[in-house]
């Protein structure tokens, strides 16, 4: 066996290129492949150096492999599952219900204080549906998260816990820190979803545009154009969420036609 470990050098080069995916999964698998083939060549009489050269030549360069893994990111990558597709349907329902509930609440604000108000149960149901849909969005994209997305995915639950604790214990600092973490985490994850390009970016823009508009009346109060702005915001938010859900759901069709390029 020769002294130069070309396979180890190749793996170092590939590691440095950070191919999309979990390196702890990718590198051992590739190493097993390369060393198995090299050992087979060694058994056929090649020197260890020649065996390594041969296997590396047929495997593809580190840049080839990085690009091949990158090609499985984003649109066309078959990463949807029955769970994410179901979450898409749930998100569609959640988006519609959320928009309808908020619009109704804007039209009939006097109902909100009634002891038998429909608002609480409807809003809770819509929120649960939307959260389930967003979990589906996360599951669909988690394989392509960068460090930012990986951080965001943990900030969201941490923020929710602090938010709930803040409300339950009347602790404003906990509430505001939780809210901040939640917003930051959602933003980081949203950036990853945007970058992945799996879901139509217009859906993300629509939903995001709806948030500030929707907050006009709750924050500033008022009626007239403010009420109209909030209405538009509710509808945009609901439509954006529904569109995101549609994007998750309809992937079944596009996945059936997806491929990984074999020419690298």
């Amino acid at each position, binding site marked *: 066996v020769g002294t130069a470990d070309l396979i180890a050098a190749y793996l170092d080069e590939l590691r440095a290129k950070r191919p999309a*995916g979990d390196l702890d*999964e*990718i590198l*051992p*698998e*590739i*190493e*097993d*492949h390369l*060393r*198995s*083939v090299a*050992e087979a060549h060694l058994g056929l009489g090649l020197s260890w150096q020649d065996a390594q050269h041969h296997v590396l030549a*047929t*495997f*593809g360069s580190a840049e*080839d*492999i990085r690009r*091949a*893994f990158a*090609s*499985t990111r984003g649109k066309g*990558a*078959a*990463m*949807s*599952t*029955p769970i994410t597709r179901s979450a898409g349907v749930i998100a569609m329902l959640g988006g519609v219900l959320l928009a309808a509930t908020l619009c109704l609440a804007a039209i009939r604000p006097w109902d909100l204080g009634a002891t038998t108000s429909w608002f609480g149960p409807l809003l809770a149901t819509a929120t649960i549906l939307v959260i389930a849909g967003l979990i589906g969005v996360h599951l669909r994209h988690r*394989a392509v998260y960068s460090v930012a997305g990986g951080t965001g995915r943990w900030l969201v639950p941490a923020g929710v816990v602090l938010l709930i604790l803040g409300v339950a214990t009347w602790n404003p600092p906990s509430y505001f820190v939780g809210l901040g973490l939640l917003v930051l985490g959602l933003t980081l994850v949203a950036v990853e979803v945007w970058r992945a390009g799996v879901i139509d970016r217009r859906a993300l823009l629509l939903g995001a545009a709806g948030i500030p508009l929707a907050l006009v009346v709750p924050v500033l109060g008022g009626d007239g154009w403010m009420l109209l702005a909030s209405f538009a915001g509710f509808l945009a938010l609901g439509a954006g969420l529904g569109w995101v859900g549609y994007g998750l759901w309809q992937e079944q069709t596009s*996945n*059936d*036609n*997806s*491929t*990984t*390029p*074999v*020419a*690298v």
Partner: protein
Amino acid sequence: MILGMRADILKGHLDLLLLTVVSEGSKHGYAIVEELRERSGEVFDLPEGTVYPALHRLERAGLLRSEWTTASGRRRRVYSLTHDGRSAIVRRRREWHEFSTAMAHVMEVGPWAQPT
């Protein structure tokens, strides 16, 4: 990268090929590449490294599952077909049959048609 067949022809069918090979028994990546090469009469001579992104993608899609074993003192990832993967093969084979039949019908007319 040299291929035994034009890459763009093979491109659209890689998933079906991989699923079919794995459907006949659990295999690791290199065994899958070798099986494809041998059974195609060395026509499907894939750049070996490009098979792994496809396998990972199929696993994320729920069509394959994998588990780590140990072989020759090294960790080895072995792939097997899921229930969804089996359904996908049935569907994609049907699509392939329809496509290849239609292609044959079109191509059998003209001076380039193979003599029967």
